[in-house]
């Protein structure tokens, strides 16, 4: 990769983090939980995004970020109250900034009109307080004018007309600067490239040789630059050292004294301590970078040091550990076959190895575990947008953002959550008028929560809306031919109708949830991950969607079964119960199919061996074992296997990596004997058999 591209990628990664902390900060302020530090963090986030954007020449982004930053700066210096109204504007501004970042990545376009309107709104917010705006803003103004925007109208013309003959720059290197490997000479050389400069050395601080500390810098420089040099160009020279090398930049013969007096506050460390709020952009440049790093560290693990690792390396490690687990199982099997006693040293050594392997596996999985926050943090924006489109007032409450789950699962959580939130707002919540009429507050609440429960991650999306309109759901299902008009259904069963393919409750298809995909798609994608989704609803009180997923997609708890001559693995999550049928429970139905009576209900029997084409004739169910599984839509089926070998955790291996998707097979794994075993896609097997009504059961594949 081109080094510049690599840097750009890093910048984009940082942008994502900065945008997240920006939004988080604004939301905290909105909730009234923020303090001066929060405002500073928010300001730094925007500032850092802008800084990088400038470096890469994303001018539209710089332009917008600057306006945003200007407004935030007012808030930071206490000139603008962080009241809910201005925060709402800022939240929307952060969305626009995120659009800019996406556009810069080449993954989207910025709605120009929206961006301009947003900028205007921010400026209005800023200028509302303009008379009180401090002089701090004045000095940067002319330099930033080159970008083509007007941060604060009042000081602009004034400064442009101000006669000036140049810049005086004082450089005061600190100990840390030298310790970090920077050299004042390089700055001077860099500055000399900008223009003809005149450098004066100030050695007044130099002590006598006996008091001399070789590691303390005593020398300061004063540089005179002509006013043809842009301020930003000068500041850019020091971009990478920031606080480590305070500078003092003064425009000579500039009539208004405020900028002169305000500017030094940037530079002198002593002053900065006394008046941190007046730190100006240069000091901030560095602060922003540090702030970003610190914020990142704090969110990941409070206080602990973190490193950024290429995901591929972690995945490779996980693969290797998977192989180790398989190898260990193979070894154990060999030793068992060799007839070694369980108390023999070799068997005991193997036990220890097994424990170690398990621990290594757990630790490696923990590396890939991530808080669901990365998905959750995209949701407030989504909710704001949907609320805007639907004209409903929505408050999103999020809980358990720190809940950790494997990265592969996280990646696939986003779509179902998005869909469920859309659904909750679009279909669940009532309009403000209806809410008031129902005696509820105008603003609806949607709760998004994540928690761990019995080795799985549970995501709950609930709303305090009107609940599922059961008569209406029933009516639609009947109209669409999904159920017969005289079907007797429990409330739960009615609720579950919304998961049926082709069901959509919105009377009119809206562009929010009615995109041609319904809750059936959500259910299907959740099930593809080995998850389940349930719904509970109280009329007038609201609905709750609860989805539970395995914590990882790298290993799976499975039941090892045999069918035909093959060993197969059935995911435990799909199995409701296992049983050995009595002959009288198996009843033939139709020419070649049979059903099994289980506690009064009759479920279709499916021979796994036949379904997978491993044999032509089904085995007699009474000689085999039945796995009672639950299929999509809550229907049940009885899978017939020859026998159950045991229950075990298996490492999931993709078939698609070297081959392709195979019907009826979810993935593969490697068993203790080193052979590949296929993991059953229970849903697909059941679906396929039940929808092949015309095909004879004994059909050979």
């Amino acid at each position: 990769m081109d080094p510049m591209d690599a840097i750009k990628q890093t910048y984009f990664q940082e942008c994502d983090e900065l945008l997240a902390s920006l939004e988080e900060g604004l939301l905290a302020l909105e909730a009234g939980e923020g303090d001066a530090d929060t405002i500073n963090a928010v300001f730094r986030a925007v500032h850092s995004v802008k800084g990088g954007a400038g470096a890469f020449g994303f001018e539209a982004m710089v332009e917008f970020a600057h306006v945003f930053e200007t407004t935030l700066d007012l808030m930071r210096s206490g000139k603008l109250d962080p009241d809910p109204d201005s925060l709402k504007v800022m939240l929307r501004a952060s969305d626009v900034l995120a659009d800019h970042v996406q556009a810069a990545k080449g993954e989207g376009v910025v709605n120009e009109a929206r961006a301009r309107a947003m900028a205007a709104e921010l400026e209005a917010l800023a200028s509302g307080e303009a008379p009180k705006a401090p002089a701090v803003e004045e000095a940067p103004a002319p330099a930033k004018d080159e970008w083509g925007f007007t941060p604060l109208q009042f000081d602009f013309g004034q400064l442009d007309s101000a006669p000036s003959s140049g810049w005086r720059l004082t450089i005061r290197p600190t100990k840390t600067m030298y310790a970090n490997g920077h050299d004042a000479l390089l700055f001077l050389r860099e500055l000399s490239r900008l223009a003809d400069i005149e450098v004066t050395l100030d050695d007044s601080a130099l002590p006598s040789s006996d008091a001399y500390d070789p590691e303390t810098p005593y020398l300061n420089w004063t540089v005179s630059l002509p006013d043809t040099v842009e301020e930003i160009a000068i500041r850019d020279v020091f971009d990478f050292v920031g606080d480590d090398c305070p500078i003092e930049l003064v425009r000579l013969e500039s009539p208004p004294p405020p900028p002169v007096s305000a500017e030094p506050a940037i530079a002198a460390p002593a002053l900065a301590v006394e008046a941190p709020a007046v730190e100006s952009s240069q000091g901030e440049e560095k602060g922003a970078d540090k702030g970003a790093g610190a914020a990142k560290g704090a969110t990941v693990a409070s206080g602990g040091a973190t490193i950024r690792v290429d995901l591929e390396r972690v995945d490779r490690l996980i693969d290797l550990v998977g192989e180790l687990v398989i190898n260990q199982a193979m070894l154990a099997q060999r030793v068992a076959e060799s007839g070694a006693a369980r108390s023999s040293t070799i068997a005991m050594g193997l036990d220890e190895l097994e424990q170690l392997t398990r621990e290594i596996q757990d630790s490696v999985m923990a590396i890939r575990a991530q808080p669901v926050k990365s998905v959750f943090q995209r949701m407030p924006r989504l909710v704001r947008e949907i609320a805007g489109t639907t004209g409903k007032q929505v408050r999103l409450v999020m809980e358990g953002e720190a809940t950790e789950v494997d990265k592969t699962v996280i990646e696939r959580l986003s779509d179902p959550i998005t869909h469920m939130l859309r659904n909750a707002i679009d279909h669940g919540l009532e309009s403000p008028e209806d809410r008031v009429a129902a005696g509820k507050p105008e603003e609806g609440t949607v709760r998004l929560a994540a928690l761990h429960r019995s080795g799985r991650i549970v995501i709950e999306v609930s709303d305090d809306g009107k609940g599922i309109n059961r008569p209406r759901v029933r009516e639609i299902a009947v109209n669409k031919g999904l159920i017969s008009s005289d079907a007797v259904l429990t409330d739960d069963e009615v609720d579950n109708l919304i998961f049926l393919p082709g069901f959509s409750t919105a009377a009119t298809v809206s562009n929010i949830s009615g995109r041609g995909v319904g809750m059936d798609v959500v259910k299907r994608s959740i099930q593809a991950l080995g998850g389940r989704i349930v719904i509970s609803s109280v009329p007038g009180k609201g609905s709750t969607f609860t989805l539970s997923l395995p914590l990882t997609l790298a290993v799976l708890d499975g039941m090892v079964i045999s069918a035909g001559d093959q060993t197969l693995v059935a995911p435990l999550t799909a199995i409701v119960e296992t049983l050995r049928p009595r002959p009288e429970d198996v009843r033939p139905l139709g020419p070649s199919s049979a059903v099994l009576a289980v506690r009064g209900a009759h479920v279709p029997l499916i021979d796994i061996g036949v379904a997978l084409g491993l044999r032509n004739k089904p085995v007699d169910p009474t000689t085999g074992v039945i796995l009672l599984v639950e299929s999509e839509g809550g229907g049940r089926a009885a899978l017939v296997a020859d026998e159950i070998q045991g229950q075990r955790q298996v490492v999931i291996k993709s078939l698609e990596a070297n081959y392709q998707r195979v019907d009826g097979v979810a993935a593969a794994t490697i068993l203790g004997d080193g052979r590949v075993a296929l993991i059953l896609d229970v849903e697909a097997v059941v679906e396929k058999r039940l929808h092949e009504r015309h095909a004879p059961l004994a059909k050979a594949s």
Partner: protein
Amino acid sequence: MTNGEILNDTLELISFRIGEQEFCLDIMAVREIRGWTPATPLPHSPPFVSGVINLRGAVLPILDLKARLGLGVAETSARSVIIVAHIGKRLVGLLVDGVSEILAAERSAIQQTPNVGCDTVSRFVRGIVAMEGRMISWIELDDILPEQENAEAA
């Protein structure tokens, strides 16, 4: 495999037997050669897909080259050999009767596949290497996986 061909005039080829016929592959496409281990059959797969085996933790599909070339289904024995080869980013195992030798052939000495009016020949034989009175067919791997595969692998 095109990525394996270095722009010089000599090709290195691995030759192998299937029944009475001799075939070869560009050596750059071959990752390893291993003995036969029983494969786990895949449901609903074409007859020339013998199944999958475990190649040090990866799931490797095994293609019966004999069946793929329309020469009948291979009978596996302890002497059968699996040639592990790259096709694009994928690894596949090719089941053959036995590996013979490594050949060096001048690129210019490779003859065009004669038209014998056979679809499998024109599809899977890239050229003919004539050497010491033998005729060795140079196998084209790009098309060797089952149909739907090619769309994805392309």
